[in-house]
């Protein structure tokens, strides 16, 4: 099975073959023999050329988070076949000159510091979110006009929820 992975901007083609009790993993042209023990769904023990790696892998749809010896890696990875299919279908998608202030974590809206139509400077406080006893003032990253306020004071919000849109 072939996969396309990206790491630090570079794209790698990786082929995985199960071979008897070992896995063969070919990264670009280099071949690695890997002795794999899956301990739990996300914990693996790999032996590669005698070197032992205790590795935690949490996989999302198109990306894996990998932890090895305390180092964390975020590796976007997809099956090559699926990726080609998707690429053929996906429309272009871009939008500029717009700031979306979203909740960095789940929390409660403590105070909204701006009103719709108000102009803001880069760095001005826009909204105050509280989670786990810490208040965080979210700031505008550039100048603009407040277009939309999607929340109310006192309301709970999920992580990633859009709070304020500035244009």
């Amino acid at each position, binding site marked *: 099975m072939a996969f396309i992975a990206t790491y630090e901007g570079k794209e790698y083609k990786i082929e995985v073959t199960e071979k008897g*009790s070992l896995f063969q993993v070919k990264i670009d042209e280099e071949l690695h023999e890997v002795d794999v023990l899956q301990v739990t769904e996300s914990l693996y023990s790999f032996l590669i050329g005698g070197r032992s790696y205790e590795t935690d892998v949490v996989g999302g749809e198109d990306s894996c988070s990998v932890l090895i010896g305390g180092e964390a890696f975020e590796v976007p990875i997809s099956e090559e076949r699926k990726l080609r299919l998707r690429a053929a279908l996906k429309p272009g998608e871009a939008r500029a000159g717009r700031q979306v202030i979203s909740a960095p974590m789940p929390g409660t809206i403590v105070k909204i510091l701006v009103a719709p139509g108000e102009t803001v400077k880069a760095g001005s406080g826009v909204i105050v979110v509280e989670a786990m006893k810490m208040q965080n003032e979210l700031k505008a990253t550039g100048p603009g006009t407040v277009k939309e306020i999607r929340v109310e004071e006192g309301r709970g919000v999920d992580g990633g929820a859009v709070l304020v849109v500035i244009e």
Partner: protein
Amino acid sequence: MFKKILIANRGEIAVRVIRACREMEIPTVAVYSEADRPSLHVRYADEAFCIGPPPSTESYLAMDKIIEVAKKTQAEAIHPGYGFLAENAAFAGLCEREGITFIGPSSKAMRVTGSKTSARTLAKEVGVPVVPGTTHDLTDEEVAQTAAEMGYPILIKAAGGGGGKGMRIVASDEELTSAIRAARSEASSSFGDPAIYVEKYLQRPRHIEMQILGDKYGDVIYLGERECSIQRRHQKVIEESPSPIITPDLRRRMGEAAVALAKASGYNNAGTMEFLVDQDRSFYFLEVNARLQVEHPVTEMVTGIDLVKEQILIAAGEKLRYRQEDIKLRGAAIECRIYAEDPDNNFMPSPGKIWGLRSPGGPGVRDESGVYEGYEVPLYYDPLISKLVAWGRDREEALERMRRALREYVIQGIKTTIPFHRRVLEDPDFLKGDFDTTFIETRFTERVATGARRHQEVALIAAAIHAYLKEKRAEVPRPQVTAPATGSPWKMAARQDGLRRR
């Protein structure tokens, strides 16, 4: 001895107190909010009662409800842990009136030391130097006026408690209004009291504190210092004992100052006198923490004394079991606070579910945890999930062990401060003991992206094998696995898929 103790707290400190009670064979009562039914302290206690909705003002700060549970269960004493009601003199007073022993100082001693005004007045009286600043609870206007007189930078602090909550450093007039608002609001939600005051902000001091124990008969001893200068957002993250800069003579002088302060205020039970120590090794009294501290384990490990048990014995009216000359520091201990926070994103809280957990073990390592695999760290409370402590023959060995333990510690599903601690424990200045309270914010450079990344290739291999196995499982219809009596069918499936080699 008490026939039953109620623990008016949650998470790792509630578990810590329950462990002490179990060792003393005293039954325990836990209280919990509606969000905390799955918390470990509910399982560990002998009894457990729900006291209200998740917000702490309606549960862990609801004095009446807690007293009600204590009476219903005939608990003879209440241990407040730290935070919540631990330094609330009104609560200590309420316990006294209800005939329940509050495990901590008397409400009177708490009022004297809890009001920074009287604590600082007292310090001056007994000849202990203090940091310049006001001590009254100030109005917004008074804060502005004091700042103008004193000159920036200033520090706004919550009158009601510590731990960096409600604290703001202000460098200029423009920042003042929003800093006051934020400080009051945090103070209010953390301690139920929006009162604030102002202090001169010293340049590059060390934050060093003295642990004391005093009994109800006026005897007070000190148990050595803790170095607490490694802070971010004025909140301690790494503590150690002894401090790398304290000489036996300075320890004795600071210890005696701490004892003098405690005696002058009629203080009893465990407590901490916080000091700032200057670059020329002058020390200034800062405030009293009239409770057990988060970082108490480092003192326990170098003195060999279980502070929670001593608290209970003192509260029960026992005389101190140690004289000053019995207190001997052995080796060195260091604590790393493991928070559910993202160190690569400005320490944003990272609540959520812990999918995987592997705790460190082996020689010299102590993990004071309040979580378990499958536990969901709730939004509502302080994000401290565990305190990792290492002891060594000397500071070097304690650091070696802490590095080893941090490498063993894996928490999956949420972000934690473990990677941050690993970086600090490799910083040359930190290793030399050359730091101050501004270290993290000014001198410590986060090497997030610059690290060696030795395992990049293995990461690619791991990602590919994981993706391969996921695809394979998705394609092949899962074989009918007869689930065993216990255990995860995932593991079984993986086995049957032939993933387990040799």
